[in-house]
């Protein structure tokens, strides 16, 4: 067994370099096929009849007219009479027809009688929630009462994050096709290896009969781990239609209504410190909803990152008539960060302290990675010129445009998930890496080619990467920032084992011991003797007639190649128009660590993407639910706003690398950098206008209202 480890810095030929994604050309040229693009011969189009009501009982369903329509090939009741529907958009009947308009006509021809029941959809009013608000156990650490008594300065504030949706640009969807007992499924998923077992039960078949494929995905963000009811329905409808392929991709409004949301979180916070800024006391009462399933914040995670020694926390979870929450990129962390970092920033203002000094002062409370946070804060401060640009609360320069600076820190786990990798070296020198993972847009394909190519002394172009098929070795779902650690570790192990076996075959020809060989620059050569070498192809020819396949695994003994626990600091520079309440981001900087970086370019891309998404949720994204009708009012892309390229400002990323970082092994990065933008922007707004805007997104109505309470200058324009 090889001694598994990552190569030393000077030996890395591809790892850590800036390498463009392998799937870039097919994506920008439109050749990449997403699930949405799957069009099979004879394919039928599926549609779902959805409940228009947030809460209702189904009394009767009449599908006869739909069934009689020409072109309609299958109609199936998903939830029958007697069922209590708990949210608008819930699935009631599925239809498959020869084209989309016919399927839509069939949906309209179905008559459903509902008994309408009272609903609750709003989430920001605890009183309105009544007994649908359930408090969780209070969590106490230390002695908060005593600590507040000993505090020289106490701040109390209210902070909130509105619920938002995932709004994947490729909506959720699936195409199913039966061939006898075998089911082929193309699905837009973060979980290629895990879909079949979730479909088998409802379809009364075995997982081994289900083939799952996906080449490319247009966004998941945590909302695409399951086949979903509509995905399973494609298989039911296909069966009813004699095995013909049936595709359902969600319409944009359904995508926003039912395919995932990030829970809201509101918090009343009290925080106390000594005169010198030492944080000693925290109290929070938070509430929010993840929809019908309740859910919401784990209150013992308050305060976020900064472990205040004395703390009392309680969360109240509201169950309302909205589809259940789904993991949204770093579940709970952005909401926890907002309430924590904003409360601490307000406290720093009350202490007349620069928040950077305040955080550095309390850096010890971040625990064992305190020095990393210090380094990251100082790096971010340098990148944004904090010491020069920061000013005490309230920009005092003349005019209606006020500028301000804010910061936030964050944490995440990111240890690699379970992953099996089959690596094959063919006698002609070609190399293939195969596993049932998926490239969520994060660059997984490219990472696999880098890890294998680096081990073999070959360029990325020499590595064929096969992913996106559940017939390949099992690899985990892409959630929790666990993919890069998992797939790079299994590939590295496979590569080292494969190389060991190749060296054993090639060694006699070089008159050397296998242990004396190395693979460098397209050659297999004797270490320290450049005269004794074979080209990679000559060496592989020594395998004889048969290819060599090796299975690499993560986790795997003896040494771990992945690790857990990252930090990051982000700082924002914003301008606020105090006459209109419109916020513009000038610049955001991010200093982030994630252990050993496989691809510097795509690591930075993860941070850029996260910061863009951060600007979007900080300023624009909000699921607007209407208590009057029980409906989501902005299930579209005109009033569910996403940031555009003109809205994101200048973004600067600095990845922490080198000693202290690289030797930790590979750690995930998809989530951490998306946590801080909301909090940093919130703090920057407060710094600009001298008053806190409590609830995110920071839209003109909320900013103007905050200015009014301050008696700000908008009152006189």
């Amino acid at each position, binding site marked *: 067994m090889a001694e598994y480890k990552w190569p030393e810095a000077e030996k890395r030929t591809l790892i850590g370099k800036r390498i463009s994604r392998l799937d870039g050309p097919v994506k920008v040229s439109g050749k990449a096929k997403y699930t949405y693009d799957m069009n099979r011969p004879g394919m039928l189009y599926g549609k779902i009849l959805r409940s228009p009501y947030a809460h209702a009982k189904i009394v009767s369903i009449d599908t006869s007219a739909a069934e009689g329509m020409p072109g309609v090939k299958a109609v199936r009741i998903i939830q029958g009479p007697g069922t209590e529907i708990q949210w608008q958009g819930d699935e009631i009947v599925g239809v498959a027809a020869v084209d989309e*308009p016919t399927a*839509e*006509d069939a949906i*309209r021809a179905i008559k459903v009688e509902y008994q309408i029941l009272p609903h609750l959809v709003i989430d920001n009013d605890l009183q309105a929630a009544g007994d649908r608000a359930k408090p969780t156990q209070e969590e106490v650490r230390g002695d908060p009462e005593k600590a507040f008594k000993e505090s020289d300065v106490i701040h109390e504030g209210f902070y909130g994050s509105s619920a938002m949706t995932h709004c994947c640009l490729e909506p959720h969807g699936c195409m199913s096709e039966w061939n006898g007992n075998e089911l082929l499924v193309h699905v837009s998923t973060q979980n290629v290896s895990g879909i079949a077992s979730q479909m088998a039960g409802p379809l009364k078949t075995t997982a081994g009969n289900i083939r799952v494929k996906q080449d490319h995905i247009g966004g998941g963000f945590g909302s695409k781990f399951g086949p979903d009811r509509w995905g399973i329905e494609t298989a039911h409808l296909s069966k009813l239609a004699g095995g013909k392929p049936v595709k359902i991709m969600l319409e944009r409004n359904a995508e926003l209504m039912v395919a995932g949301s990030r829970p809201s979180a509101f918090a009343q916070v009290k925080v106390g410190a000594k005169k010198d800024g030492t944080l000693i006391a925290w109290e929070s009462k938070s509430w929010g909803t993840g929809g019908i399933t309740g859910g919401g914040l784990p209150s013992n995670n308050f305060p976020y990152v900064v472990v205040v020694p004395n703390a009392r926390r309680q969360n109240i979870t509201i169950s309302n008539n909205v589809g259940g929450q789904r993991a949204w990129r770093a579940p709970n962390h952005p909401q926890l960060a907002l309430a924590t970092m904003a409360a601490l920033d307000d406290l720093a203002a009350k202490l007349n302290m620069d928040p950077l000094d305040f955080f550095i002062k309390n850096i010890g409370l971040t625990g064992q990675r305190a020095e990393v946070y210090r380094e990251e804060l100082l790096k971010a401060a340098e990148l944004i010129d904090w010491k020069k640009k920061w000013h005490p609360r309230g920009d005092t320069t003349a005019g209606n445009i006020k500028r301000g600076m804010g910061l936030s820190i964050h944490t995440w786990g990111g240890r690699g998930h379970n992953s099996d990798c089959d690596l094959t070296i063919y006698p002609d020198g070609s190399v293939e890496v195969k596993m049932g993972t998926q490239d969520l847009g994060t660059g997984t394909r490219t990472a696999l080619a880098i890890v294998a190519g680096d081990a073999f002394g070959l360029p990325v172009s020499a590595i064929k990467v096969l992913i996106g098929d559940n017939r390949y070795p099992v690899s985990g779902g892409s959630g929790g920032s666990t993919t890069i650690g998992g797939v790079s570790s299994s590939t590295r192990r496979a590569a080292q084992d494969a190389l060991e076996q190749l060296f054993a075959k090639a060694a006699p020809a070089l008159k050397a011991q296998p242990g004396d060989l190395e693979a460098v620059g397209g050659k297999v050569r004797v270490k320290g003797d450049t005269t004794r070498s074979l080209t990679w192809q000559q060496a592989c020819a020594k395998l004889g007639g048969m290819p060599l396949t090796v299975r690499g695994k993560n986790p795997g003994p003896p040494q771990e190649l992945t690790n857990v626990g990252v930090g990051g600091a982000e700082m924002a520079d914003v301008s606020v128009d105090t*006459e*209109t*309440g*419109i916020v513009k981001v000038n610049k955001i900087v991010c200093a982030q660590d994630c252990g050993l970086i496989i691809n510097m370019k795509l690591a930075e891309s993860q941070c850029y993407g996260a910061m863009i998404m951060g600007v979007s949720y900080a*300023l*624009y994204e909000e699921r*607007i639910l*209407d*208590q*009057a*009708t029980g*409906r989501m*009012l*902005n299930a*579209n892309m*005109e*009033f569910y*706003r996403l*940031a*555009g390229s*003109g*809205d994101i400002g200048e973004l600067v990323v600095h990845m922490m690398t080198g000693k202290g970082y690289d030797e930790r092994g590979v750690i995930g990065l998809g989530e951490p950098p998306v946590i801080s933008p909301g909090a940093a922007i919130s703090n920057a707004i407060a710094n600009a206008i001298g008053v806190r805007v409590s609830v995110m997104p920071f*839209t*003109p*109505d909320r900013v*103007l*209202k905050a200015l009014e309470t301050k008696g700000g200058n*908008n009152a006189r*324009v």
Partner: protein
Amino acid sequence: MRAFEYTSPTTKQQAVALLESTWGPTAVLGGGTDLLDLMKDDVETPKRLVNIKDVKELQGIHLTKSGLRVGAAVKIEELVESPLVRHYPVVADAAREIASPQIRHMATVGGNLCQRPRCWYYRAGFGLLAQDKDGKPLALQGDNRYHAILGNSGPAYFVHPSSLAPALIACGAKIRLFGTNGEREMPLEEFYRIPASGQERENALSPNEIVTEVLVPSLAGTKSATYEVRQKDAFDWPLALASVVLKLSGNKVQSARVVMGYVAPTPWRSEEAEQALVGKTITEETAHSAGNAAVEKAKDLGRNGYKIQLARVAVKRAVLRAAKAGA
């Protein structure tokens, strides 16, 4: 979307002959950037679409003795790029900011003027006046953060979504319509109306009439501008918009036209703001007073009070921008 018959006449006589005399069964197709959405959402369910882009008489931008003549089928992007329209800064400002480049290349002037409100209750199928089963307006019970702050005493609470209409009304433009009964012409300002019942629409067009052109008098000797308050940098509906045309005598305002958009069920001309400007030199203070005057009668429906402030600012900034602009 439901199946429909597609027709593409080449004369305006043929076009109106294809339209029914009641709303619903037929619809005029310009760029389709609004109509297709309405059809996808099943708010409009026409059996026949009458494409008017092949009608030559509806094309073209040209100068006449009395001013500018803009065909109804002219694309928004043509307005943006037309050297003739540059003499109408108030129109050019408005056109340039509409939606996105893709939409500006499809959407037409006539379509922009006749597009339906974006009220989320209307678009969800609750009707133009969006009432519950007891006849109570949903906009008053529900979420009205984007609804009207002026002209909102009912029964309509939506805002008119045209960015071009306020600019053209500020110019004193006329709209020309053609129907089975022939041609008629009216000031664009009078084209818009607040519907009194669910059977009425927000403009004077009959079901079997089409808009053929807009006639814009010369703005020679004036200064003009449009300013919109919009949250996003691009491709976003304005929260408030103001178009201003000023006629100056020396450095004093001789006459002014101030029209707001996105604040009322129609483009909203503010004579109060105009009066506040007449006889004044344009300064930060007078612009500010005009803004205040413009929203004197504005009313908060509960969630949209902030729009009063935004409308005030839009007027103020449009006035200041106009004063700085060329003729």
